[in-house]
């Protein structure tokens, strides 16, 4: 049961993020919402990669008490790292767009848009 806590957190994070993106009118809050969804997905990936009693496969000479079978293939960690890097780039770009939009519209409200119809 306790092992499900990370997955419940993932669901909560994604739900909170989606709520923010769907219902918050402030553009910065939308950006925050997207970051929260991203954290949820990253947490999901990293939780999948957890193995109880596993060690990182970084040894040339194994320390005593560690068997090769305990080593964990670090693919989910690599995926998460990539995803975090992409997330930073997206967040930076998004915030700079929001800044530009604020300069033009003098408003952070998603309802004060120019393009419609």
């Amino acid at each position, binding site marked *: 049961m306790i092992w499900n806590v990370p997955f419940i957190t993932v669901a909560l994070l994604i739900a909170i993020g989606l709520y923010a993106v769907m219902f918050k009118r402030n553009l910065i809050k939308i950006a925050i919402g997207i970051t929260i*969804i991203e954290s949820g*997905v990253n947490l999901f990936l990293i939780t999948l990669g957890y193995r109880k009693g596993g060690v990182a496969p970084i040894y040339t000479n194994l320390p005593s008490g560690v068997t090769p079978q305990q080593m964990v293939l670090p693919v989910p960690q690599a995926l998460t790292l*990539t995803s975090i890097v992409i997330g930073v*780039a997206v967040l930076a770009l998004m915030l700079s767009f929001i800044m530009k*939009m604020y300069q033009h519209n003098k408003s952070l409200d998603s309802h004060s*848009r120019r393009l419609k119809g």
Partner: protein
Amino acid sequence: MIYNEAIPAILIGLPLLAAFITPIINLASRKARNAFVIAVLAIEELLIILLAWHVFTDGIVIYTMGAKNPGIVPLQAAVPIRIVLEIDGMAAFMGLISCTVAMAAGIYSISFIKEGNGKSRYYTLLLIMLAGMLGMEFTGDLFNLFVFLEILSIASCGLIAYRQHADAVEGAFKYLVVSNIAALFVLFAIALFYAQYDLLNIAAIAKVMQYTQLDKIALVLLVAAFAMKCGSVPMHFWAPDSYSTAPAAITAMLVAASQASLYALFRVCFTLYGSLMDYQTIGLAIIIFGLLSMFIGVTMALPQKDIKRLMAYHAISQTGYMLLGVGVGLYLLGSSDFNVYGIKAMEGGIFHIINHAMYKGLLFLTAGAIYYRLGTRNLNEMGGLGHTMKFTSIFFIIGALAIAGIPPFNGFASKLLIYEACYKVSPILSIVAMLVSVLTLASFIKVFHSAFMGPKMHDVKDVKEVPKSMLVGMAVLTFVIIFFGLFPGWVVSHIVHPAVMALVDKTAYINAVMGG
């Protein structure tokens, strides 16, 4: 011939490398930079033709990144390690589209984008966009697909906002939000696959796919995300916003970028799941997406005043044809009718992808030519451009006739395939498709009338023909349109049919990686 097995990697690597060399060359000379970018794009076009030729004659090409012998996949513990590029007929077909559109857009941009204001960075992003598209199309690895999807959308957003108008920034922001959420859904679906199968390779997952509950959820996430990225109604709202505000050459690239997402959608439906899933349900869903896209897209295009927004709605409507054609194929998958007209419907849908990329790219470029001279996208302020911009109006007529499906242009050939094959499934599908075609013609008559016809307007009297490089960019696409229009039979049997068969033949795709 001069084919080399490293070509798939070079195709993705070369634009990435060239992207960051471009600003350095820019320090020396602007002319040299332009020549360099065009040379890179031309080499890409040449390489993709070589690769496509190889794929269409010899079958699937594999490239394993970083392997000693990249033509073979190292199977350790029966699991393919390393990132594998897998180019089958469909991927090569999409690569042809991306490279051709990128070349036309690159040539067009030489004079279209004014100097200063970071034009070298413009080319950097354009090349990265090309690399992103090719990466999405060639990769045989799901996570790699996600990475290239993000590279593509970040580069596109940077380019949409290139002019930094209030509109442009807003369009870019909307595209970024939408595509990032779609990409996160894709990543979640990839995580679901990894949780079950410990695999990321598309072929390997397809081989062991069980179609469990989690796989169903992943299917929904992938279909919804890629359907949104390709702009199908009712998830199309971002498309007119970002298409209309981007510089015209970039809009043509965005069309190709949306089609890369369309490719990913088809790849997921046919290769990853194939006949395992409820293909009738998903096929029906895609058909409904297609019908809605066609109809709502074209009816929303009719009252538009902004020339590029109007064309963007047409892009949505034309995407509907592709979804309809391929959706019919998916719906019939496995039934005995599939070989009779399912294949034909898919040929129509896939053929329409390349046709659409060419004529819609051309139309956006002509809209850009008008914007270049008048500085407005508002149709109400245009008139009488045909007196002075003769070549542009000829290109526009060709593009408009092709999109409306008037013989003998290429749009007619693909639409004919779709009409006839869909008629067998349900006449209603064909009727809607034809009605949409009529409305398409009607709205392009409106554009032609209000922009090119009429007396010389007073305020646009000093409107000259656009510079040569823009004309060359448009001419490249026009040439392809006319060629495809005159020889549709050759194109379908040599390019489109292999692509369709590659999409349908799931086992060949799996065996190319997993062996036997």
